[in-house]
Each structure stands twice: as structure tokens, then as C-alpha cells.
């Protein structure tokens, strides 16, 4: 069976498995750091975009729109290959994390903003009328309701960031995809690519399923 020898070659898969695991570890590092940085930056951006002075709001909006328009690969190439010309030299890891978090922050900001804006004005007014401080209003009333709204789209965004880590292979980052392509070259056989695909799916499928489950249970609670 030629197809099995070519794409599902078990000895090749076993031989290259340690390489793929090293790649997975790098992918997870890039992904988790980018997701956390994106969340923090995104929440800050959302608050600035909602409550900042007018011109800061404009800047935040411009940033968000720009980062959502630029292809991630283009941004990554600019950061890694173009910034050194102006004296900013980032390691492949930092380049990948910067590009991923800058873009993720833009999407996260829009998610947080939508979540907070979805809370009716009456909730803010009722909290204020009771004498709750801004902190208590946010912690006890607004954010618990907003979190419920933003968790599914935030998880979706995390999935996208994890998938986009594959682009880091372009800047010579030894992530899962890069290791797989190298293993493929070494073994002169594309099975490691299939192995990488299986690993990506095995990691992300549970997250995808979790989002669907959350969305279903929220839809049920709203009825």
C-alpha cells in the first residue's frame, strides 16, 4: 500500500516522534505566552477604547482596525526581517510572540468591548443608585455578566492563536510545523506532517468542543 508507506509510515513516525514533541513544546510556549499577553493587552485596549479620553479612543480604534486588517504573516515578516533595519532586532521567539499578541490583542479588545457593551445600561444605573463603588459595580455586577458573554468568543480566539503559531516556522522557530517539515526532509517522507496534523487536532479539538458546549448551555439558560 503506497499511500500508507508515504503518508502513514509508522517507523518514520516513531523515529521522528521526539522531534515533533520538541516542536509541540515550542508551539505551546509561543501560544500560551501570546494568548496571555493578548488577553492583558486586549482588556486594557477595550477599557481605553470605552472609557479613555476621546483622542486615545481614536488611537485604540485605529490600532484595532489596523491589526485586524493586516495578514499575520505579513506582520511577522515585517517584525522579523524589516525591524532590524531600524535597529530593533528580536529573536524568532519574541518576533512570533509579538506578532501573535499584537493581533490577538486587537481581536480580544473587540470581544471584551462587545461583552461590556452588551450589559444593559440599567445594570450600571441600578448599581450606582445603590451606592456601589465603581470597583464593586464592576466586580459584583458587570464583569460576572460580561465574562459569561465573552468566554466562547475568547476561547475561539485562543484556538486561532494556537493555530497561527504555525506561522512562526517562517522565522526559523523550531515549532511543531517547522520540526515536522525538517523531519520530513530528513526522512524523505511526509509522514511527520501527518503526525503534526494529528497533534494539532488532538490539542485543539477539545477546545472547539468546549466552545460548542458552552454556547449550547448558555443558549439553554437564556430560554
Amino acid at each position: 500500500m503506497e499511500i500508507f508507506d508515504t503518508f502513514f509510515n509508522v517507523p518514520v513516525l516513531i523515529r521522528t516522534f521526539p522531534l515533533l514533541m520538541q516542536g509541540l513544546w515550542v508551539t505551546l510556549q509561543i501560544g500560551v505566552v501570546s494568548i496571555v499577553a493578548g488577553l492583558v493587552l486586549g482588556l486594557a485596549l477595550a477599557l481605553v477604547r470605552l472609557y479613555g479620553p476621546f483622542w486615545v479612543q481614536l488611537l485604540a480604534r485605529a490600532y484595532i482596525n489596523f491589526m485586524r486588517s493586516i495578514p499575520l504573516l505579513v506582520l511577522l515578516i515585517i517584525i522579523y526581517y524589516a525591524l532590524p533595519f531600524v535597529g530593533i532586532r528580536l529573536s524568532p521567539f519574541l518576533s512570533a510572540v509579538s506578532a501573535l499578541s499584537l493581533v490577538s490583542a486587537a481581536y480580544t479588545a473587540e470581544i471584551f468591548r462587545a461583552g461590556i457593551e452588551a450589559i444593559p445600561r440599567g445594570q450600571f444605573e441600578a448599581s450606582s443608585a445603590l451606592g456601589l463603588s465603581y470597583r464593586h459595580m464592576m466586580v459584583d455586577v458587570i464583569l460576572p455578566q460580561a465574562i459569561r458573554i465573552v468566554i466562547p468568543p475568547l476561547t475561539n480566539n485562543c484556538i486561532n492563536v494556537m493555530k497561527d503559531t504555525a506561522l512562526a516556522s517562517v522565522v526559523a522557530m523550531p515549532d511543531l510545523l517547522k520540526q515536522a517539515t525538517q523531519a520530513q526532509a530528513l526522512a524523505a517522507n511526509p509522514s511527520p506532517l501527518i503526525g503534526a496534523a494529528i497533534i494539532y487536532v488532538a490539542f485543539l479539538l477539545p477546545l472547539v468542543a468546549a466552545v460548542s458546549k458552552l454556547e449550547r448551555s448558555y443558549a439553554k439558560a437564556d430560554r
Partner: protein
Amino acid sequence: MPGYIEIRNLQKKFGSFTALHGIDLDIAEGEVVCVIGPSGSGKSTLIRCINLLEPFEPTSRITVGGTTVERGHNLEKVRADVGMVFQSFNLFPHLTVLRNVMLAPMRVRGTSPEAAEKRARELLARVGIGEQADKYPGKLSGGQQQRVAIARALAMDPKVMLFDEPTSALDPEMVGEVLDVMKSLAGTGVTMVVVTHEMGFARQVADRVIFMDGGRIIESGTPAQIFDTPQEERTRNFLGAVLNH
């Protein structure tokens, strides 16, 4: 009579539109005042200024119990002493009825959870929904939700209760149960300012009725004066429109 709530030259603008044209009003402690008038007359805006849900012009001045209503650390104190009931209830949907009532006393007054729960259960029983305490607001009817909202405001032991069209969003058969709770509240010493379209309630319960139109107080007096012998043309027209149909 010295005003517990003193409103001086209250002006409110929304952009180029002037919603309130310099209102002067004193409300005594324990007084029940009903504010009536057509839609857009500024009556809701007026009571929303009392706890600064609407910011007003800097030349205007409102004091509640001697404390000036303004941005700053006095504001939370004023708001803690001034309860408000909204047309759309605005209960916290993620908290049970009991927790809705307990939240502000615990966070603002520092009441212990045990004391707050005891008080909340008393108040819920008083407004006739003691057995619904552990449900979420979404499971209650509009009339029940509005009574929870009244209990939530009362839990802060307010000196003043503001009602912003509390029965306007209710199905007709539920209006009575909310008005009954409000009637039982009148005469307990709490100062009440009620924006309402319920003329029967105003006539029966109010110490004073204020008729507003176009952002001004057109006429004010006892229910008998306003409803039986209105002096102003606009008051007569309004009452004619709402009472004879």
C-alpha cells in the same frame, strides 16, 4: 418648611435640547410627592438628577439631607441613602432574589452576611415574595420583580425613595400589587418622589402633586387642588386627556 431635598435652579441640557429649565423644589422629610405630566416633560430627568444618574448644569444645586449632590466621595453616601426603583426593574440577573437584596448592604454598609440575609428575608416577606427568595429574577413575573427591586432599595434603609414610572412596564393585572407595596411604604417616614401615570395612586397617596410640562413645573398642590381645581390651562388639558377616556 425646610426641604429635606432642596433643588435650586436645576437645569439639564441634552446637547442643544434643554430638558429642565431651572427647577426650584423643596421636598420635606417624610413627604410623598407625585410628579405627573406628559412624556418628555422632564419628570424622569428631574428625579434622575436627585441621585446624579443624570449630570446637571454646574450652576444648579441639589442637596439631600444637607449633603450636596456632586461628583466625589459624598456621592456614594447620598446614593446609599437614596433608593431608586426603575421602570425596567434592573435586577441583577446573575444573582438570586435574596442576593440581589443582600448585595448593597454588604458592600456599601459593611453589613455581615447573616444580618444582611435576615433583613433581606424580612423585606421580601414584607413585599409578599418571601417564598421566591432563592429563585433567579428571570423566573419571576414583572410585578414580582418590581417588588424585589423595591425590597432591594429598602435594604439600604434609605431616607428617600425615588420611583421612576415603576408600573409603566407592567402588565395591567400586576400594577395593583406594586402600588399596594408603595402605598404601605407611604407614611412610614420615608420621603417618596414618584414619577407616575397612575392618577388614582397620586390622588390617594400623595401629599403633594406636581405637574410638569416642557421641562418646567407648571403647577403644584394637594391632590385635590391639582385634580379637582387645576389653575393652569395645560394641567387641565393633560388631566382631561388622561382621565376621560
